């Protein structure tokens, strides 16, 4: 079977030039492709430029979190990723050869997706690119690299270099999704700020037929790699991911020498025959751009932030950037929202990246102590963890990415009514399964539309007051419409526009009572919620959730929209 890493999409021929496009995306990694799919589905055509002529070399991002799976599910492309990927729930941490800590990420009972699915980045890219093509998108240009960005009064002029020569391209908006070594960032003279750790890691994809459990295994100071850290994690196709900590100052070329590496891997993998598919060396980086929006250029994924691994926070943060930007950019391009909506992308995603960066920094300080006292503290925790329960919870081999609320978002309307439960405004709406046990899974998010959604909790459709129906019908006719679903009483099945809460999990998770109303954003975050539906309050929260100034009534399409 040919290795998917060798799949080579044909380089795109050089166009004649003189084109103008509303959105150009630089980078066809998982983040750029996810954004292109989202925009394509919203009717915004994009040109995707990818400087390479192949999918990702090596596995790179492998752990896809529930948040990413939910996003791909809404975009209709989660199935092949779930089918191809391998699942895992348990992580074990060893000190020497003794297990000192384990965690179990059991699927949440009523959620459609598991906390994680592992799949090599190149498989994800191939699946997303095929899905984008299936939507009729024909502008994924392999071998095309942006080498110049000139700001003009009415947009951007891009210089694109291809193997056949350069050409110019005009764009209203440019999204840089071109990775940690972003060309766009460099061309614009921007740099990320933060910390780079010294200790290098050797990362290896190993093909090995072995009965390793489908678990995440992490060692501090193992016999096969004394004094250092090591990780073993499963991927699809019998490929294992191995990360081995090296010492600062070690000869990295020597470490990557096949004989040296085979020796190390043999010590780790024992008698199982293996073959090395890919190797690389990296150091922990925790850095981000000060702002993710620079006028008409927007930064997503690793181009915006570099988050060190061991928590699956890099790739998943990037997919959430794409989902946050997709609907906002579509609104602005289509003249349905002011440009200021894009500033909320910057505010929300820099805050989210900061949480991921801080969590990653904490793990880095534990995995690779930076000075003698940090080393002593780390050894103290590990030593105590052998006998003391409390210390096990301080052992930090990476804290896995979890769904996370957008804190202090300008688009969120704070609660004025009393609610319990986890879904405060700004929280991601969980993709609760709508199916009874055993039935084919469909999630709550999969039935919601691409625009603002309302959830009206009522015992039955008839229980919604006639006055509320009229108001909802009016809100549904807005230029940026509200689509409302009635969530019927727990235990009842229903047909659209009524959502049946067969398992009773929706009412419980939303802390709903008859009359409760939730307003959800286009990316399925909770924008506002009330104990009773009030059309005026909902309209105001809708305006706020789509970036219109506070108190401003929703304006007609083409009114004062400042979009180009």
């Amino acid at each position, binding site marked *: 079977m040919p290795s998917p890493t060798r799949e080579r999409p044909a380089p795109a021929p050089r166009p004649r030039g003189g084109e103008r496009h509303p959105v150009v995306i630089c980078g066809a990694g998982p983040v750029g492709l996810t954004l292109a799919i989202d925009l394509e589905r919203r009717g915004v055509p994009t040109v995707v430029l990818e400087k390479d002529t192949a999918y990702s070399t090596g596995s790179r991002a492998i752990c896809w979190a529930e948040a990413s799976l939910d996003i791909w599910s809404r975009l209709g492309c989660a199935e092949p990723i779930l089918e191809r990927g391998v699942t895992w729930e348990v992580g074990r941490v060893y000190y*020497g050869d003794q297990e000192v800590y384990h965690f179990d990420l059991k699927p949440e009972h009523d959620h459609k997706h598991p906390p994680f699915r592992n799949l090599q980045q190149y498989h994800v890219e191939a699946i997303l690119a095929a899905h984008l093509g299936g939507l009729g998108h024909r502008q994924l240009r392999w071998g095309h690299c942006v080498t110049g960005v000139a700001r003009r009064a009415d947009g951007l002029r891009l210089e694109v270099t291809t193997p056949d020569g350069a050409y110019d391209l005009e764009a209203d908006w440019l999204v840089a999704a071109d990775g940690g070594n972003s060309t766009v960032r460099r061309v614009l003279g921007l740099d990320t700020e933060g910390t780079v750790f010294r200790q290098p890691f050797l990362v290896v994809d190993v093909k090995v037929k072995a009965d390793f459990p489908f678990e995440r295994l992490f060692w501090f*100071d193992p*016999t096969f790699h*004394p*004094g250092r850290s090591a990780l073993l994690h499963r991927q699809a196709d019998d490929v294992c991911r191995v990360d081995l900590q090296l010492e600062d100052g070690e000869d990295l070329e020597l470490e990557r020498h096949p004989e040296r590496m085979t020796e190390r891997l043999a010590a780790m993998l024992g008698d199982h025959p293996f073959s090395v598919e890919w190797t690389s060396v990296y150091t922990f980086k925790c850095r981000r751009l000060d702002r993710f929006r620079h006028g008409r250029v927007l930064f997503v994924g690793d181009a915006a932030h570099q988050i060190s691994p061991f928590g699956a926070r890099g790739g998943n943060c990037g997919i959430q950037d794409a989902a946050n930007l997709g609907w906002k950019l579509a609104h602005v391009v289509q003249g349905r929202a002011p440009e200021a909506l894009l500033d909320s992308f910057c505010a929300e995603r820099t805050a989210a990246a900061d949480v991921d960066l801080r*969590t990653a*920094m*904490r793990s880095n*300080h*534990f995995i690779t102590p930076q*000075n*003698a*006292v*940090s080393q002593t*503290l780390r*050894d103290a*925790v*590990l*030593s*105590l963890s*052998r*006998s*003391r*329960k*409390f210390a096990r*919870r*301080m052992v*930090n081999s990476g*804290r896995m990415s979890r769904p996370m609320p957008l804190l202090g978002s300008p688009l969120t309307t704070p609660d004025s009514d009393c609610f319990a439960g986890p879904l405060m405004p700004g929280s991601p709406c969980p993709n609760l399964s709508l199916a009874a046990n055993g039935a084919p899974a469909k999630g709550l998010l999969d039935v919601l539309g691409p625009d603002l959604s309302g959830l009206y909790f009522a015992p039955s459709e008839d229980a919604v007051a006639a006055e509320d129906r009229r108001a909802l019908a009016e809100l549904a006719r807005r230029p940026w419409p509200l689509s409302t679903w009635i969530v019927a009483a727990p235990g009842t099945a229903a047909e659209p526009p009524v959502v049946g809460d067969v398992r009773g999990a929706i009412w419980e998770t939303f802390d709903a009572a008859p009359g409760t109303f939730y307003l959800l954003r286009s990316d399925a975050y909770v924008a506002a919620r009330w104990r009773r539906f009030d059309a005026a309050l909902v309209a105001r929260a809708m305006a706020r959730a789509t970036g219109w100034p506070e108190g401003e009534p929703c304006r007609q399409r083409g009114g004062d929209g400042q979009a180009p």
Partner: protein
Amino acid sequence: MGKLRDRLALADPDGFYESLIHLHEGLTDEQSRLVMAKLVLLLANHIGDAEVLDEALRIAREDLLPRRQAGAEAA
């Protein structure tokens, strides 16, 4: 089982660990040892209970030989 609490009592263990790391920023190794010792004394005085402290003193002396050092000696 003694009186010393074994279950996790810190609400945010990773946050506390981060504070401990930051505590030593810019200090020499000698200053760091001094800070650690002061921290032990502050917390011991706060706990006060001799039975708890004796148990903590005993446990702290256990398991002092990480295998890494054992390996280094063998080599």
